[in-house]
């Protein structure tokens, strides 16, 4: 799940603004691309995206987390240029997205981008197969070829046999599988998902999240994933960007965000998060002290909730090894207990 740190950014935006209620010409931009904030005081002017700078590396999942009205959906639409940003730059693999002509933009979408929508946005008059094949048809692919490709995609998302059904005949989860298959049909490098699982029931949502991780482990796309669900963000993200009122409050790995929230707003989300679900063994281990160790070891990337049972059942400290099997530290039982029961410890201190 972790992305190689060295790869170049695939998506990069700098000082991005989307201001509703004001013409782009009215925005006064300083040298760094920042807009004079006085304009936001004007009646009816809303900055849905306010000075956002982000980059997404190849193969990375960036989850943009924010509540409704925080501007996350507008942001992803600026990155795919479904909405024209008011000011700022967006680069896709080093090319300036905002300078592209209509023709180039269409070409880019036909070859590099896929998007999944909150309410599925399936074409009601087309069958599952025709929906999945739609982007391929737009590309002018031959019939036999797109049918074969669409079939493969439908199989990939586990909907074999539903080819000739209409979207209305499917459940919500199945419909979103179609949406996912459609967005993957052209084998895009960049995958935008706009709250893809928000309209689904909790159980189906969990199933779809696992499905998403399974797909990503096979495909390794560069992903911008929008959600309002902090738990979902923690579960899926390589990095999380927390948005509030159009601004990005903090960007960082899930563990970072939970352990070191940058603002009060972010802290509100993190206070209830079970630490063991976010932190991995590497984050809380002690340096190796040469003492007696348990028989089995754990990997540094494993999450605490996955290893807790074993560590707590062991009298001796447990060795933590890296991917190469080398011991990099040890995990003590009381450390794990502290992570699992932070409040119990607090209440013990107060009389």
């Amino acid at each position, binding site marked *: 799940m972790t992305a190689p740190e060295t790869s170049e950014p695939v998506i990069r935006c700098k000082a991005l603004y989307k201001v509703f209620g004001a013409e782009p010409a009215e925005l006064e931009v300083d040298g760094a691309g920042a807009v004079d904030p006085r304009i936001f005081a004007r009646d009816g002017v809303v900055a849905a995206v306010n000075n956002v700078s982000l980059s997404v590396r190849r193969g990375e999942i960036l989850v943009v987390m924010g509540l409704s009205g925080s501007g996350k959906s507008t942001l992803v*639409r600026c990155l*795919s240029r*479904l909405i024209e940003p008011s000011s700022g730059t967006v680069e896709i693999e080093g090319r300036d997205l905002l300078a592209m002509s209509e023709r180039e933009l*269409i*070409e880019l*979408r*036909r070859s590099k*981008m*896929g*998007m999944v*929508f*909150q*309410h*599925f*946005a*399936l*074409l*009601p*008059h*087309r*069958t599952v197969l*025709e929906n999945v094949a*739609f*982007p391929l*048809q*737009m*590309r002018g692919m031959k019939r036999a070829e797109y049918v074969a490709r669409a079939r493969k995609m439908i199989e990939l998302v586990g909907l074999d046999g539903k080819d*000739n059904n*209409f979207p209305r005949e499917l459940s919500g989860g199945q419909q979103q599988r179609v*949406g996912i298959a*459609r*967005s993957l049909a*052209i084998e895009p490098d960049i995958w*935008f998902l706009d709250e893809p699982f928000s309209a689904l029931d909790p159980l189906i949502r969990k199933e779809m999240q696992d499905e998403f991780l399974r797909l990503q482990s096979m495909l390794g796309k560069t992903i911008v994933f929008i959600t309002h669900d902090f738990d979902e963000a923690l579960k899926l993200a390589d990095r999380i960007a927390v948005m509030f009122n159009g601004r990005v409050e903090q960007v960082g790995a899930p563990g970072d965000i939970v352990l070191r929230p940058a603002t009060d707003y972010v802290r509100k989300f993190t206070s209830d998060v079970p630490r063991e679900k976010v932190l991995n063994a590497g984050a809380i281990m002690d340096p190796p002290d040469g003492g007696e160790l348990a028989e089995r070891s754990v990997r540094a990337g494993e999450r605490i909730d996955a290893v807790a049972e074993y560590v707590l059942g062991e009298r001796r400290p447990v060795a933590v090894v890296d991917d190469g099997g080398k011991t990099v530290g040890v995990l003590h039982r009381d450390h794990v207990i502290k992570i699992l029961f932070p409040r119990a410890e607090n209440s013990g201190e107060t009389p």
Partner: protein
Amino acid sequence: MREWLARGMPPRHRARGVLALCALVALLALLKGAGWMPRFLDELPQHFETADTGGISHNELLPADLLLDRVFYFLLDDLGLSAVTRFVSRSLKELINIFDNMLLGGGKGFGFDAPPWSALLAVAMVLGYALRGWKLSLLCGGTLLYCALSGLWKFTMQTLALLAAAVPISILIGLLLGILAYKRRAVERALLPVMSVAQTLPHFAYLIPVVVFFGVGHQTGVIATIIFAVPPMVRLTLLGLRKVPPEITEAGKMAGCGNWQLLTRVQLPSARNEILLGVNQVIMQCLAMVVIAAFIGASGLGYRLLHKLQALKIGQSLEIGIAIVLLAVALDGLSRAWAEKKRDYTANLPLLARFKYPLLAVGLAAGALLAARYFPVLDRVPRDLAVSYAATWDALVDWIVINWSDGLDAFRYFLILNILAPLRDALLFMPYIAVLALVGGLGLILGGWYSALLTSGLFAFIALAGWWDRAMITAYMVIFATFICVLIGVPLGIWSALRESRASRALFWCDTFQTFPSFIYILPVIMLFQVNDLSAILAVIVYAIIPAVRYTVEGMRNVPRELHEAVTMAGCGRWQRLVQLELPVALPHIMLGVNQTIMFAFSMVIIAAFVGTIDLGQQIFKALSESNIGKGVVLGLCVSFMALSVDHLVTRWSRERRRLLGMD
């Protein structure tokens, strides 16, 4: 105060506002009664007919008719528009000839022989079966069988040929304008008022400029039909495109659609339901107008009906009327079934299975063609074999006249003497300034200065154009008819809505009755009351009551289930639930129904001039027979403007009320 002027009075002050307005109007009427009203506030110069010359004196303040005359003839003669219209006329004639030939044979068009009726019957039945099933198949077959057996085959085919020419053209124009309006706000802003006027302008008022521009004949009927049928298509196309969820459009863009692909592959198909509903509307409007276009020489069932009605052959008229009604119901059924048809995408069917219905149709038609060679009756039903029951109808009418005429006459006199005449005289007595104050004041209360200017301006046009008294006579008939419609229609709707099965039956009958071309409603009324002023009003009531019932049922049905459960749990009885919940919540929708009733009444009252009225409609008929374009259009506008004022006020109120109830 500024708030008021911009948006109308806040709801809690409205009762007082209306009261004050009524007091003002009453005061103005009293002033006139007392003889203190200056003449220029009471009455503006009007047209009046000079009996000896049969002409009309012109001393109105705004000679709109003469102006329009000049403009039209300038366009036609000086700008050379006539060359264009002649060309359009000729091309359309060719098109109609082709369809005429395909259905009726003869030397025009491609010069084919006429197909036997039995072959068309077979095709129609297969079509009905393929689209929906046995019921529709029998309806289509029955309709054609009726037309063939009652000796109306030729006229039916003429009507169908006109439809075949008018419907596709209307759909195409409507679709194009709808798309343009969707793409360009300016086009929409320009189209909306034109369409509002076009939809409220009486049918007959259309015919006059069309006759002047395009001459008389089939093709003129088709042109009038197209103009009449395009607005609903535009509206529904626009509505459908607007309703496409933005996500779907975005999904199309992300799939890499170009603009054309986005429109044709994503947006139009997603708006399919509304667009197909538009097609259905176009077909029904076309049928209604094709019947009325008989007045300017369009052939077919309408022409035949007009002919027989003018000769007061009630029995034969009814026969034709039934044919038209059957045709309307069958066409409505077919187009609806087509619109609702689930398309079968299973592309892997064998060829034979995929084309089984077309093959069946061709096979049956070929069989009929062959059979018709040996049994000529299957080719043409000869005149002496045609079944006619006109005599039965005539006998029934005679029986009614003989046995019921005393009672009916007494009823008629009572109504005229005690209600209609006093109401009419009261409206005629009203000084025009009082009426302007009333509509303008209502505009101010409900919508602010813009509404006030609009409504009073529209009425002022009528006063200035010199048709005030005629307009008031039209208004009195509409008011009375609306009153009766609401009195009967709304309680009927409420009663129907009390039980679900009854409600769906009521909606079914509303649907069915609404497909009948409006002209048809005159028939039963003439049968009972002969030709006189009361018949006209009754025809209006019978026609205009449909929306009152329909909207009431719909409004009551749309009250959310949760609210029902909430008031039931609060311990409401059936009656309390009706009064406390259903009526208040359904009221905005019911008012829209009343509005539709008024619109229907305005349109029907002009058609009813055919059976004798002395209002604007009568003058429009005269203008039509004189081909007096300016006068006809101005009269049409007078009707349209009254209707639009009412429409503006009621829809405004209803929309605001819905918003207050949180129902949007």
